[in-house]
């Protein structure tokens, strides 16, 4: 078992002076793994959170036959499993479910975690090097500031230079590269003044050192590198987490379909399916393709596509679309469109188009840098010009001043102002179960004044709950319980659970038989009893609510069992909190009038509309935006995607369809809705902190720049201004509650 301790390999190897040698064991391990021909499986475990979770999950996985090793990463909530090829992902997911953990397969290839990882570690390494040399140069500089003279000062300057110059070359690379890229694109990014300051400070210091000058800015140059790299690293990490989350979610559903080829079932990836193929969809499965039913009868749940909470009958010649869920019986489809041509994909494409057309939001940081970088250059060059004229052509003095101006104005605190706040805020939100996918989502969320909710699957869980069990005689409920127990249909499951909760026991019903697409029937005291669709039970009364019918035959009228969709926990709190903070709350749903009115009444939402088509929802959101409202759209279905994209900022629950999750900016990981109100509050707070941070760093500049311009900015003043402003800005970011 060489693989049992994957991360401790280096620890036992002892300290080595060569970092590359230490990295070698992991390379060895990878080689070993591929030699064994084992499979790597990556699972997402959103519920893992504690020490006991690690023991349970790893203990279970390691004991599983065929699993070589497993490790749960609690930070990313992911398990990496090395297993022999015969172990399938589905088995592992089922096994994890038995010990109480919901797991999703992640496409390890798509995640490309290693790539992002390398960049982050690269930045971290540069940060470490910059820190090392900053500390050393600082110690030497303290001696110079406190009055070292003559040869000693020169010696200290030389040593500082020997440490600082290689550091600037190595640690400054991210800035140089991005400055070069932005210059080639003809723009003046933040990185241009940064690079200019680094280069100018290093070269003027070297020049001064050679000529035994008084002032060298080596400490300022490395300090600049260090503080800016912190900002860069935080920024990168937040974006990497957001990106991996987006990729992770996109990778959640690994699309496969069961194809019937000459009577045998073959599981194929969606990409290998063409129109005309015959596909089998089992009960509980999601339609992988668009098609026409050629055999089988069942009911399909279209709620993700249309918002209807009532399942629809599907028999021969019914047209089904990708994304619908097959409920009761197996269906055989002839594929009309698959993969890129399916309706699911077409809508996803529409969203992509809408996304591209969306007016791009300019973040606070972008606005600040647009204002800032020309100003810095103008200041520095005018200082240079002025002192050239004033001193009658003293190049050395003029360059010194303009370097000092660049160093002082350099956006050390500005580079930290946004990343520090965003990191603090997204950490807070992640703990509350919200994942920020878009970098600017937090700022946009802060501007929201109108919140539009979808109903089915968003405010509700999409799980039905019987409403009128008590209106029926006990014996009827017991018969229903027996019938319902024979079906996996969501309504049947809800009925038997509710009856069980009331302490009832199923009546003796024999010869139970599920008729896919219609319901369940059986023999009760010699009478044929049925539980199912209205027309099948002979009911004619029109119902506005979701209902299933029980008929006991022989002259008795069929009894309706009505349902309501269970509201998501925290939905009422979220709506109440949003209304209390003065937001306008609107409910838009594709469901029937009655169901929407009931939900709106229950949650206290005054403005609602039912029977909304996807285009109408989007138009409504666009209309609100045109009126000047900043809309937060919360939705989960395919029918919401266009509206999600059209909104200023959007949130969708993790249970939402892929397309909706891709379209939204923030994903709600848990079932609870309450964090949404919190998120709005935190985002407003963090937007305020960002502005405060800009003001703080601006304030330092207002004091320090005049000093620099008149030539009074010593290296000591530069170091003080830089570190003080960076520290205040970071502390201010941490005040977020």
């Amino acid at each position, binding site marked *: 078992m060489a693989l049992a301790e994957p991360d401790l390999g280096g620890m036992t190897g002892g300290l080595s002076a060569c*970092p590359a040698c230490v990295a070698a064991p992991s390379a060895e391990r990878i080689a070993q793994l591929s030699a064994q021909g084992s499979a790597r499986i990556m699972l997402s475990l959103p519920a893992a959170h504690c020490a006991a979770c*690690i023991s349970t999950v790893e203990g279970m996985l390691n004991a599983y036959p065929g699993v070589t090793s497993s490790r749960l990463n609690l930070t990313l909530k992911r398990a990496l499993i090395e297993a022999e090829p015969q172990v399938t992902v589905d088995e592992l997911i089922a096994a994890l479910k038995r010990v109480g953990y919901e797991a999703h397969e992640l496409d390890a290839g798509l995640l490309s975690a290693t790539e992002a990882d390398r960049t982050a570690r690269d930045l971290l390494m540069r940060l470490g090097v910059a820190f090392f040399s900053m500390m050393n140069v600082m110690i030497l500089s303290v001696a110079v500031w406190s009055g070292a003279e003559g040869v000693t000062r020169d010696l200290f300057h030389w040593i500082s230079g020997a440490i600082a110059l290689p550091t600037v070359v190595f640690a400054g690379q991210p800035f140089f590269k991005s400055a070069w890229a932005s210059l080639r694109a003809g723009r003046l990014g933040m990185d241009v003044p940064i690079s200019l300051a680094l280069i100018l400070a290093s070269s003027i210091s070297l020049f001064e050192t050679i000529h035994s000058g008084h002032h060298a800015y080596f400490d300022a140059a490395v300090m600049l590198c260090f503080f800016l790299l912190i900002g860069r690293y935080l920024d990168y990490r937040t974006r990497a987490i957001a990106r991996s989350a987006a990729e992770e979610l996109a990778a959640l559903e690994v699309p496969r379909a069961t194809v019937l080829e000459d009577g045998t079932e073959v599981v194929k990836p969606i990409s290998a399916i063409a129109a005309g193929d015959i596909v089998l969809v089992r009960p509980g499965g999601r339609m992988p393709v668009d098609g026409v039913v050629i055999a089988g009868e069942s009911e399909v749940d279209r709620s993700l596509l249309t918002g209807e909470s009532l399942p629809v009958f599907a028999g021969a010649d019914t047209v089904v679309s990708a994304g619908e869920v097959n409920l009761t019986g197996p269906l055989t489809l002839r594929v009309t469109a698959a993969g890129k041509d399916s309706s699911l994909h077409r809508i996803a494409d529409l969203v992509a188009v809408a996304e591209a057309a969306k007016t791009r939001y300019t973040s606070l940081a972008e606005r600040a840098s647009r204002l800032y970088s020309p100003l810095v250059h103008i200041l520095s060059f005018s200082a240079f010009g002025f002192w050239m004229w004033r001193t009658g052509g003293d190049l050395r003095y003029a360059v010194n001043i303009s370097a000092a101006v660049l160093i002082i104005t350099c956006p050390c605190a500005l580079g930290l102002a946004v990343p520090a706040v965003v990191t603090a805020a997204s950490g807070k939100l992640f703990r509350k179960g919200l994942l920020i996918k878009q970098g600017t989502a937090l700022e946009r969320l802060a501007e929201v004044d109108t919140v539009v909710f979808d109903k089915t699957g968003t405010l509700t869980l999409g799980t039905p709950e019987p409403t009128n069990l008590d209106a029926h005689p006990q014996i009827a409920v017991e018969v229903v319980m027996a019938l319902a127990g024979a079906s996996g249909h969501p309504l049947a499951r809800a009925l038997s659970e509710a009856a069980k909760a009331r302490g009832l026991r199923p009546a003796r019903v024999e010869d139970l038989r599920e008729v896919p697409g219609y319901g369940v029937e059986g023999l009760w005291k010699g009478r044929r009893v049925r539980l199912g669709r209205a027309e099948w039970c002979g009911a004619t009364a029109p119902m506005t609510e979701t209902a299933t019918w029980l008929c006991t035959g022989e002259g008795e009228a069929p009894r309706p069992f009505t349902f309501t969709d269970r509201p998501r926990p925290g939905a009422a709190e979220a709506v109440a909190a949003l209304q209390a903070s003065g937001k306008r709350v609107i409910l838009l749903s594709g469901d029937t009038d009655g169901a929407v009115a009931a939900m709106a009444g229950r949650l206290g939402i005054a403005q609602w509309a039912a029977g909304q088509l996807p285009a109408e929802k989007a138009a409504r959101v666009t209309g609100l935006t045109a009126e000047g409202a900043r809309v937060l759209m919360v939705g989960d279905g395919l029918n919401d995607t266009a509206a999600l994209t059209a909104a200023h900022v959007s949130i969708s629950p993790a249970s939402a369809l892929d397309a909706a999750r891709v379209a939204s900016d923030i994903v709600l990981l848990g079932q609870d809705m309450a964090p949404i109100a919190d998120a709005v509050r935190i985002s407003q707070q963090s937007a305020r902190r960002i502005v405060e941070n800009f003001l703080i760093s601006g304030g330092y500049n207002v004091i320090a720049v005049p000093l620099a311009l008149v030539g009074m900015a010593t290296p000591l003043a530069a170091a003080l201004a830089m570190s003080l402003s960076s520290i205040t800005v970071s502390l201010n970011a941490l005040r977020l509650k």
Partner: protein
Amino acid sequence: MEILGILIPVSLFLGFIGLVFFIWAMKARQFEDPEGDANRILTKDWDDRPKP
């Protein structure tokens, strides 16, 4: 002032050890799963015998 000739190299050397240690820790993926490692110390799984 001759002491500087010893002290500066010594301090640089000590700092360098810290840097090497940091780079080693990063390469050995010590920062991969901070939350998991913090929790792992609390598990009792291998308290009685070392992990095989």
